[in-house]
């Protein structure tokens, strides 16, 4: 069964329609836009390596909401030390889902130089439940059942550009997300 980035995002949005999602630049942002019909999520247009930190900030700011970070594998490799921070502070409302295809997509399809093994790293750090999934049913099961904070490494079996542009309008993203995340604080 082929697993594409757009299907991973669709599984997240389908499983948790009320979750606050944060997507890293490139494929993740395009996939989340497609899956949620441009829903009020936090789409990063750049700042590679920062998306998990943003999601952790949101999670701790809004502890009564589930927060899902949708991350590229090159993205998380660049900001991997945030896994240590998640392990340290352990927000129980945070799930990170990594689009694992071993490739830097937005920069032109160059291969990562190593296998990141994020799920194994998360488990080794302690305080983060990690798992690697290869099928959509396994992904949906992990989304529902994995401990939190959790990290799901979703192995993509097909590389397909989800569709929408990853070049978002920051002002629109901020306003829509803020109204969703903290309507009483605007």
């Amino acid at each position, binding site marked *: 069964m082929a697993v594409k980035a757009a299907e991973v995002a669709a599984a997240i949005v389908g499983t948790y329609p009320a979750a606050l999602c944060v997507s890293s630049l490139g494929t993740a942002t395009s996939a989340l836009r497609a899956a949620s019909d441009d829903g009020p999520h936090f789409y990063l247009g750049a700042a590679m390596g920062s998306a998990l930190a943003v999601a952790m*900030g949101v999670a701790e*700011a*809004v502890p009564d909401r589930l927060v899902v970070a949708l991350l590229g594998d090159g993205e998380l490799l660049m900001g991997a*030390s*945030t896994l240590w921070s998640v392990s340290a502070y352990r927000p129980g409302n945070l799930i990170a889902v990594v689009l694992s295809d071993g490739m830097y997509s937005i920069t032109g399809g160059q291969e990562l130089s190593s296998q990141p093994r994020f799920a194994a790293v998360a488990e080794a750090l302690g305080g983060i439940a990690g798992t690697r999934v290869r099928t959509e049913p396994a992904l949906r099961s992990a989304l529902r059942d994995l401990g939190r904070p959790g990290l799901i490494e979703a192995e993509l079996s097909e590389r397909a550009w989800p569709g929408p542009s990853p070049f978002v309008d920051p002002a629109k993203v901020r306003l829509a997300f*803020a109204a969703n995340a903290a309507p009483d604080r605007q």
Partner: protein
Amino acid sequence: MADDKWQAAVADTLTAGGVTVAAYVPDTRLQPILSRLAGNGICLRSLTREEECVGYAAGQRVAGQRPVVLMQSSGLGNALNAIGSLAVPYRLGLPLVVSMRGTLGEANPSQVPLGRAAGSLLATLGIQSFSVRDAAAAEQLTAGVMTLAFEAGECAALILEPELGGGREGS
């Protein structure tokens, strides 16, 4: 002579301005500010890298909270991408507290280039910075930086200059 009155003034003004969480990478001169913030009941987050602090604070800010980021000036280089391609374009209005190294009295040559460039780097990104050199000005400048950040929605930096002393002398 080390004197932590200015550090208490910065911390108490941040607290009075409604700061909810402080994300930081450790620094000798920042430590009394952080201890005071913790004593005031403010949540502290010691993170691994200054860029991560900006990302974390961006998430807090867009979710309606009032974060502050504290770093040593040498860490500003680490933070530039998150500042320039996240905090500034999304107009997240983060107050940055920067403890200066690499300028007046610096003995470590490796600290000098980034310290010398810190103000220019911020200015090039359109971020106003305000230098505290005298403890008597700490409250006013801290409050002003918070107003720029939280009310006007502009990132703004409070620069803790070496003249304040506070812990790095002789290091």
